[in-house]
């Protein structure tokens, strides 16, 4: 055996189980990077209703937060990554937490992982919509989602400035939803809230399962919102 052979043998190998997950994440980042210019910015809780309703019909309601930075990439230096078949959560050295959602499943696991990364998160099964629902400054009638919906008091939402500082939410058809959370910007006692109806329906275009009723929001407290309002 020569030193070259020994060198080949000592090459650290990627565990096979991890290789595909890592490759998939790298692929998402690559594809998102090539399309960076195409990211659109839509204001949270304002505008984009037509597009939003259309997306509900397809698989999930997806909006882009007002703080979204199109094409923004965290570059290396992350301190912790948790990869499952459904999602990837990365905590960056700077404290920001990035979530890639491939499938809307395992809300309990996601909540636990986010909390371990310092995000006081509530990831709860079910469809939750703040009420009154005001989009583009206009109050709207209850959504016809075809699923039971919990309407909760919009007064429990943190101010828009806080939402913008904490949550960046990007999604494009065919790509996993991507969120960047800044836990440091969350007021004391607040919580990031994500509703999460797992398992249905399936979007044949991107393989996602499950739906969200509303993009993640920051609540003024860390309790699960109580249902009230219409059709609850």
């Amino acid at each position, binding site marked *: 055996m020569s*030193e070259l052979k020994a060198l080949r043998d000592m090459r650290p190998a*990627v565990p096979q189980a991890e290789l595909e997950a890592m490759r998939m994440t790298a692929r998402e980042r690559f594809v998102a990077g090539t399309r960076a210019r195409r990211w659109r910015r839509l204001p949270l809780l304002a505008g984009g209703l037509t597009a939003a309703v259309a997306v509900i019909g397809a698989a999930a309601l997806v909006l882009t937060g007002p703080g979204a930075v199109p094409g923004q990439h965290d570059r290396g230096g992350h301190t912790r*990554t948790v990869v499952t078949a459904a999602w990837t959560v990365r905590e960056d050295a700077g404290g920001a937490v990035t979530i890639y959602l491939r499938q809307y499943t395992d809300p309990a696991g996601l909540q636990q992982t986010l909390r371990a990364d310092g995000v006081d998160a509530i990831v709860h099964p079910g469809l939750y919509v703040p009420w009154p629902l005001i989009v583009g400054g206009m109050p709207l009638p209850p959504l016809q989602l075809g699923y039971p919906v919990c309407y909760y008091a919009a007064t429990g939402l943190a101010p828009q400035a806080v939402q913008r500082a904490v949550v960046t939410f990007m999604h494009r058809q065919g790509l996993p939803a991507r969120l960047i959370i800044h836990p440091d910007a969350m007021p004391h006692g607040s919580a990031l809230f994500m509703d999460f109806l797992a398992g249905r329906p399936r979007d044949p275009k991107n393989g996602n399962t499950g739906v969200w009723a509303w993009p993640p929001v920051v609540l003024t407290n860390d309790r699960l919102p109580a249902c009230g309002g219409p059709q609850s």
Partner: protein
Amino acid sequence: MTIDTQPSDADLIAGSLAEPGLFTAVFDRHSAGILRYVYARLGPELAEDVTAETFLAAFRCRGRYDGAWPDARPWLYGIAVRQIRRHRRVEARRLRLLRSALADGPAEDHSDRVVERVTAARLGPRLAAVLAELPRQDRELLLLFAWAELSYAEAAAALGTTASAVKARLHRIRVRMRRELGGSNPMDEENGDE
């Protein structure tokens, strides 16, 4: 007679100038190899990032790809090497860890290549130490050859030099390695692994 109906990397890259989505096929072909290489050099923390950045950098400069190379591997590894350079401290730490891990003993291995395994275990920590002390350019070349398993010509293309220069440099590196490992390796049946 075999008819190869698969487009070459060069075809895909040329096509991606008009249809950018085609470049994803290049990613799918080569990302596992690049990821393994980056993982080996930088570890799991940066493997995904650097792999993605490598292909993004390749995508951005695909207009300058030399179509005379049907296989894009050398080009991609060359870009990966440049991306890895940005994480020198991480690599140095990685090599220190590798040295410690190898010094702790070989991992469980049920292969019947006992002699090779014992030899690798004996050489491992010293090799890791030598690797850490090599000049950057020499380490890059050696690992392209040993870990990415590129040929002389491919390594030369990756590093923007000639195959004869690569061969000469590699010979010099191996002489140095043998010297620093304490002379010739008694298990070395022959010197021509390549």
